[in-house]
């Protein structure tokens, strides 16, 4: 580095630069939190959805699946599974029978454990996935396959 660029200039660049961008980041965080109500489908956050999210977490679903692209990539994306598997008409029927059929027991195929959820719990988990599918995700994923 050029001799004229001194250590104290470097330090000021670090201190000033970080402080400046930390403040901007905090500002943008506040703005994002302010705008989220129009985008995050919070009007549909029912008790059942809340229960469903808890079940999603307690069974570590994200250890195999992704949800809006985040999680593991071993099993299908579930952020839009509501639309992929029947939507308003038949998603719940599909979902319950699918969950109850696990593990499929096909040799060599990736296998999902049986989580022994009762009907009310399956309903809640399905509600959670429906709520997630209806968030504004800037049009992600690109197609129905997730």
């Amino acid at each position, binding site marked *: 580095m050029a001799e004229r660029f001194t250590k104290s200039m470097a330090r000021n660049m670090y201190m000033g630069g970080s402080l400046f961008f930390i403040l901007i980041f905090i500002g943008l965080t506040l703005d994002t939190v302010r705008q989220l109500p129009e985008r995050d489908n919070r009007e549909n956050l029912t008790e059942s959805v809340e229960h469903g999210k808890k079940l999603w977490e307690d069974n570590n679903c994200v250890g195999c699946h992704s949800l809006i692209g985040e999680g593991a990539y071993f099993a299908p994306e579930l952020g839009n599974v509501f639309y992929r598997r029947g939507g308003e008409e038949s998603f719940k029927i599909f979902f319950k029978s699918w969950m109850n059929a696990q593990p499929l027991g096909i040799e060599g195929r990736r*296998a999902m454990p049986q989580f022994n959820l009762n009907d009310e719990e399956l309903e809640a988990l399905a509600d959670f996935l429906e709520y997630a599918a209806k968030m504004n995700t800037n049009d992600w994923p690109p197609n129905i396959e997730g």
Partner: protein
Amino acid sequence: MKYESQAVAMPYFIFALILFAGQILFGLILGTQYVIGDFLFPEIPFNVARMVHTNLLIVWLLFGFMGAAYYLIPAEAETELYSPKLAKLLFWVFAAAGTLTIIGYLAVPYATLAEITGNDLLPTMGREFLEMPTITKVGVVIVALGFLFNIGMTVLKGRKTVINIVLITGLVGLALMFLFSFYNPVNLALDKFFWWYVVHLWVEGTWELIMASILAFVLIKVTGVDREVIEKWLYVIIAMALISGILGTGHHFFWIGPPEYWLWLGSIFSAIEPIPFFMMTLFAFNMVNRRRREHPNRAATLWALGCAVMAFLGAGVWGFLHTLAPINYYTHGSQITAAHGHMAFYGAYVMIVITLISYAMPTLRGRPNGNSNKAQVAEMWSFWLMTIAMVFITLFLTAAGVLQVWIQRLPESGEALNFMATQDKLALFYWLRLVSGVVFFIGLVVYLWSFFIGGEDPAIEAAES
């Protein structure tokens, strides 16, 4: 080793490497499950093995960082550690908490673990990388507070150098950002948004400070270059890391709910995130070229150079590949993400911890000039085996990711292949990745074996200046 209390770093390093071995074993299980889907099912389902793999990585890196701090801070502050006893006590607390957590993952279903550890009281579990029970998280906070107190007091009574101040800043930042792991709102968009406060502001923020300061420390030691020069570089590198990395968080906000301006901000700032890593590469090679001594521990120098290069490739180049919003729209959550994750973590954080261990461990074992030539040769073999294996793991996962995007993401609905059918098409790449993983494991075995090779101290070519 100048200060006796630096020796408390030793158990941290040893335990870190034991966990590293565990991490790679579980990586091999996962790699096998990618090609033989029901391998070890239902005894070890994929989600459990993955949780063990990623959590072991995080915990062993934390052990590595703490060991590094206990070694580096007294040396820089030129004084004994404030309380070696506290450091030893916290070692056992953290080791016990970590071991119990891993046993918990493997012994009972995750839902049972959540229930018996009281996840109902304060639900924080079941989110990627933050799977540990809430009580373990509380334990981590307690250990972190004790640790920061200990090294903070050491610096207060000793010399304050740029290196130890930057290291402490990084470690305090790490601990502060971890507090967001206790915030788990029902609202998924808010949950995801603040989850990145932990994950991104760790690996693309505070951890970069830790990495750069450790690198600077080792470079001073092995090259003998003037501290003033090294410190100036250090400031510029961390300035660029935070200037790009803080708003760079935005590249995670594209599709999880936040407003559209993040598409622009995240793309622009994360596009400059490779700069600090590129500067670290320039820094490392420059300092080694301008060295004022031939340090007999050549293995440590090799790790330092390799770390800078691999961090630039893994975090910088592979990050940039998929960080622009129009590209990320198709690659988000694909095997390309996995490719980037593997090389970035290995290059930046695994290698920086090994760099420091490679320099520090011989001095802690009474070999100030490094291990014997025989041991160093084995260590350098392990460097090349692990590093080349990781390059191939990354290349095969990238190839898998490109193909996945091509057949599952790019076509219209109706024409795109579904997820499971796509995975079948990627099997060849997954097999090749598994083979590379086995080579990585062999490299790790060679690395661990190198600690047990005796022999004479290396000849000192140019006496220490």
